[in-house]
Structures are given as structure tokens and as C-alpha cells.
């Protein structure tokens, strides 16, 4: 638990894209909650695969195939360690966390849920943790129940036991991609387990930003996605308790996930390969491994410390400059939130704000952030979201504040 903080200038030097200019201005990238940028270490790891030792994995006897396979499986081990998994075999690679959650929905949930069963989700879930359950609910007659928010944008657990009564699954995000809220997963998992429900954690916004331990959470399933944690697009995955992975029927059928195929049927492969059908994102897995190395070298405690202090700085600066003209949809308490800041600038639509700040080189996202049920709770069609990461510093926050001021002036009536 080092209290070391980050050497941001050094980190910035690892990200080639940060040298770019937009509209003649320095690029100020504040959309890492949507997708992070990638350090040269990750780019080089992937480039090296293709230039030096690329072949399909698990399939060749020859040297470069062995090398690629070893690197691919080593990446699985790195992810396992990052998440506190007991074994690399508990990690299944998928193309993103959305596929990981769908894997649970198609495999585990369809094998275990029947008409009349309930799934509990929260009002702050991303569509990735809502739509798969809607599809299942419509198909099976399963009920979706929603944990509401407190006025301070946290989960309101006062009626949790009622909501969980008779539920088979609690599907909850570790951290909100809109509000910044970090949820108390252990408390939620304990309540869910007491009610006999399994717990699926959407780790998309957690794994990149603070130390995660799937065993301390006592979760049953945890999803993650590489492109938000300095890794490439095209890869993500699922951690699950080994006994669940064993029991779960296969999802996607094809090469690699089988042990035997005849004209009459097939036998699935061992876990985790049972769930990895077809040629996987090979270079991407290796790139993810390099991203895990990079994050581990920084130290997730230091990442969290950096984001906390930068978030505090941002919230203070924004409030000082805009006062009541800027609504911030998220907790004020730095202890229960990350560096994702959703804003509504009075009288100006999020799209228009984002357009004007782009002119200043500042990248923010104007959107419902794939959380439409939450937007309805917040009573806005969209918000402007700035999200902070390891390569951001106070100068970036200052640039945001100035750019937002320009937007205010531009649309002043």
C-alpha cells in the first residue's frame, strides 16, 4: 500500500498520441472512461508479435506457434494475478466485457434461470449489464428489479433484502461510468449470497483505476475490458469461480473449444478454453498482458491516489468557476468516487458543449454514456463527461475549465 503517486510527465511521454494537436491546440484527452489511450509499451508488444513471432495459438507444433501460445497464455496469467484470481484457468478471454456478460447470460443464466425468477440490477448500470438481461427476461419471463440511487448518487440499499428476495442474480457495476460512484461490493455480495443469488460484477470502470481482488469482493463473475485499461481494442474477459466455469454449458461453438467432434455431437474442451471458440484476439491478449505490466509497475494504489487528488482538484475548480450553472451528477465525497465527472451546463446541450470544447483540443464525451435508464433517473437526455486517468494532470483540468467557459460564452443568449 505505497502512498507513492505518479510521475505524470514521465507517463505522458509513453503515450505518443498526447503529442498530437487538434485545431492547433494540444490534445487534452478526457474520455478515458470511454476508451483509454495506449502506451508505447503496449503498442510495441503487439507490433513485436506480428513482426517476430506470430502464429495461431494452441495449434502448431512449430517454434513460432509455441512462442505465440506461450505469450498468449502468459497474458492470461497476468490478468489472473491483477484480479486476485486463484489460477489463470479462471480467466476466459472475450472480445470485450459486453461479450463476457453475454457469455454469462447465454450460458450460466439460461442454464439456471426459469420463468418467475428475478435478476437484480441497479439504476447506474451500463447497457452492457442491462440489455443481456432484458433479452433473457423477454425470452424466459424473468423479472428485472432495480436498485435505486440515493440523493448522493450512491446505491440505495435500504430495500436491498426485499429486492434480493427470490433473486438468482445480482448484476452490479463496481464503479459507475457516469456518476463516478464506487460501490461497496462486499456488502452487496454478502446480501446477495445470503439471499441465494449469484453476483456478477461489471469491472469495466474498476480494474483500470484501483486495486481489485475478486476474492475479497466474494464475487461469482467479474468482467473486464482491455481498451479502458491501457490495452488494445478487441479484447476483454471474464473471471468466474472455477466451479461455475466447470458447470456452465459452452456458449459459442467452434474450433479450440472442443475436445471431440463427431457427426453426432461434441465434447467440450477444458476450462477456460471451453469458452474460447475460434481464433482468439491473439496480439490483443498479448497487448493486454503488456498493459497489465504497465499498470502493475505504476501500482494501482498509486493510480487511485493520483486520481483521487486530481478529481478533488477538478471538482473544486469546476465549482469555483461555474457555481450553480454547472450541475455535477455524482458524489462529492472523493472516497466513494473515481475520476469520472458528469456535468450539465445550464441551458446548453451536451453535444453543443462537447463541440465547442473540441475546438480547444479538449476531448469530452457528450452522450447518455450507454446508461439510458440512469439518464431518465437524472432527467437529462445526455451529460458532458470528463474522465481522468493516469496521463492527466492539473493542466488538463485547467484546459477543461477554460474550454467550458468558452462554450458558455458561445451559447450565451
Amino acid at each position: 500500500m505505497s502512498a507513492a503517486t505518479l510521475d505524470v510527465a514521465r507517463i505522458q511521454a509513453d503515450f505518443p498520441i498526447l503529442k498530437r494537436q487538434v485545431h492547433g491546440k494540444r490534445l487534452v484527452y478526457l474520455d478515458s472512461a470511454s476508451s483509454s489511450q495506449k502506451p508505447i509499451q503496449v503498442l510495441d508488444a503487439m507490433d513485436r508479435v506480428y513482426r517476430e513471432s506470430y502464429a495461431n495459438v494452441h495449434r502448431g507444433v512449430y517454434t513460432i506457434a509455441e512462442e505465440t501460445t506461450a505469450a498468449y497464455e502468459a497474458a492470461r496469467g497476468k490478468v489472473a494475478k491483477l484480479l486476485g484470481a486463484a489460477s489463470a484457468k479462471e480467466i476466459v478471454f472475450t472480445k470485450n466485457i459486453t461479450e463476457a456478460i453475454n457469455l454469462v447470460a447465454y450460458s450460466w443464466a439460461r442454464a439456471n434461470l426459469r420463468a418467475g425468477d428475478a435478476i437484480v440490477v441497479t439504476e447506474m448500470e451500463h447497457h452492457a449489464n442491462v440489455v443481456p438481461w432484458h433479452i433473457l427476461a423477454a425470452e424466459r419471463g424473468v423479472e428485472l428489479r432495480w436498485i435505486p440511487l440515493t440523493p448522493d448518487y450512491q446505491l440505495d440499499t435500504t430495500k436491498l433484502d426485499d429486492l434480493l428476495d427470490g433473486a438468482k442474480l445480482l448484476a452490479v457495476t463496481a464503479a459507475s461510468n457516469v456518476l463516478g460512484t464506487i460501490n461497496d461490493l462486499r456488502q452487496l455480495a454478502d446480501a446477495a449470497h445470503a439471499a441465494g443469488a449469484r453476483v456478477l460484477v461489471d469491472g469495466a470502470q474498476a480494474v483500470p483505476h484501483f486495486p481489485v481482488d475478486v476474492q475479497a469482493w466474494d464475487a461469482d463473475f467479474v468482467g473486464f475490458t482491455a481498451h479502458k485499461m491501457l490495452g488494445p481494442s478487441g479484447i476483454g474477459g471474464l473471471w468466474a469461480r472455477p466451479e461455475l466455469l466447470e458447470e456452465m454449458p459452452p456458449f459459442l461453438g467452434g474450433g479450440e473449444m472442443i475436445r471431440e467432434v463427431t457427426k453426432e455431437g461434441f465434447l467440450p474442451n477444458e476450462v477456460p478454453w471451453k469458452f474460447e471458440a475460434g481464433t482468439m484476439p491473439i496480439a490483443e491478449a498479448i497487448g493486454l498482458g503488456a498493459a497489465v505490466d504497465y499498470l502493475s509497475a505504476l501500482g494501482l494504489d498509486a493510480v487511485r491516489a493520483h486520481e483521487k487528488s486530481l478529481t478533488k482538484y477538478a471538482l473544486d475548480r469546476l465549482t469555483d468557476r461555474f457555481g450553480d450553472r454547472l450541475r455535477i451528477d455524482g458524489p462529492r465525497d472523493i472516497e466513494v468516487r473515481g475520476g469520472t465527472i458528469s456535468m450539465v451546463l445550464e441551458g446548453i446541450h451536451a453535444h453543443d458543449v462537447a463541440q465547442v470544447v473540441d475546438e480547444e483540443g479538449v476531448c469530452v464525451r457528450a452522450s447518455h454514456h450507454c446508461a439510458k435508464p440512469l439518464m431518465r433517473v437524472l432527467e437529462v437526455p445526455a451529460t458532458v463527461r470528463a474522465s481522468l486517468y493516469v496521463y492527466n494532470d492539473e493542466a488538463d483540468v485547467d484546459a477543461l475549465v477554460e474550454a467550458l467557459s468558452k462554450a458558455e460564452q458561445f451559447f450565451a443568449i
Partner: protein
Amino acid sequence: MPGLEDLYREIILDHYRAPRNRGELPVPPAHRVEGFNPLCGDEVILYLELDDGVVTDVRTAGQGCSISQASTSMMSAAVKGRSVSEARRIIDAFLALMHTHETHLEGTPDSATGNGDGSAADDVRLGDLAALQGVVKFPVRIKCATLAWYTLLQGFDEAGA
């Protein structure tokens, strides 16, 4: 900010600040139709009064950014009082203007409405609507600008007009 002037022409900001034809119409006799922009959650609701092949009245509701609101307002002004077939020609011409960019990307132009081709569309005078042309340089905003128009098309189709 020179780049932005192309997008936010004065006439657009004017329609945004003072949208024409806001409101509702009783349904029926009016037809009500809704459109969504899945990207940003913008929403357009149109109330169409159609009488003997003529758009006798239009009212608009919903919420969105300046571009979608202005485009909705300009659209309502452009088609109100026109025959449905004239309105369809305007839609075609407007969408053709907006899709210069997309067409280029796809390599395969397709007429959104199946009503008239690009060259016919050129004949239509777009007037004020031409101010929205600046949107083409900002591809993500094209959906904001076209939302009302696709919704109108859908309304015509649903009303069998």
C-alpha cells in the same frame, strides 16, 4: 472560433433559440411520430396534420442539441403547407445534402427515401436549409441534423401518405 462558425450559422442559432411550430396537435386527427438518436439520446416528436395529400399543420416536441432542434424547426417551417410529394422532394434533397459525406465513405450511395434520385433532388431549392450544410464537416452531427427528417418520413409512411 472560426471552425465552429460553419456549424453554428446565425440562422441555426436563431431557430434553436426560437424554435418554430413547437407544440402538440390532438391525435387523431393528427398523426404522432417519434424519433431517437441512439448516440446522444435526442428525441423528436412530430405531430402531423395531413389533409388530402397536404401537410396542413406540423407541431414539434422533444429535446436535443442546437443542431437537432434547429433542424427540426427549419424542417417544420419548410414543409408546412406543402403537399406530401413536395415535402418528400425536400426531404430527399436535404438528406442528399447531408449524406454527401456518408456516401463518400460507403462507396455505395443509396437513396434513403426511394423517391427520386440525386439529380432530381438538386432541383429543389433548399433556401434557409442550406445553412445546415456546415454540418457535413462534422459527421457525428449529421445524425442530429437528419433526425427530424427521418422521423417525418416515418410519419408519412405510417400515415400512408
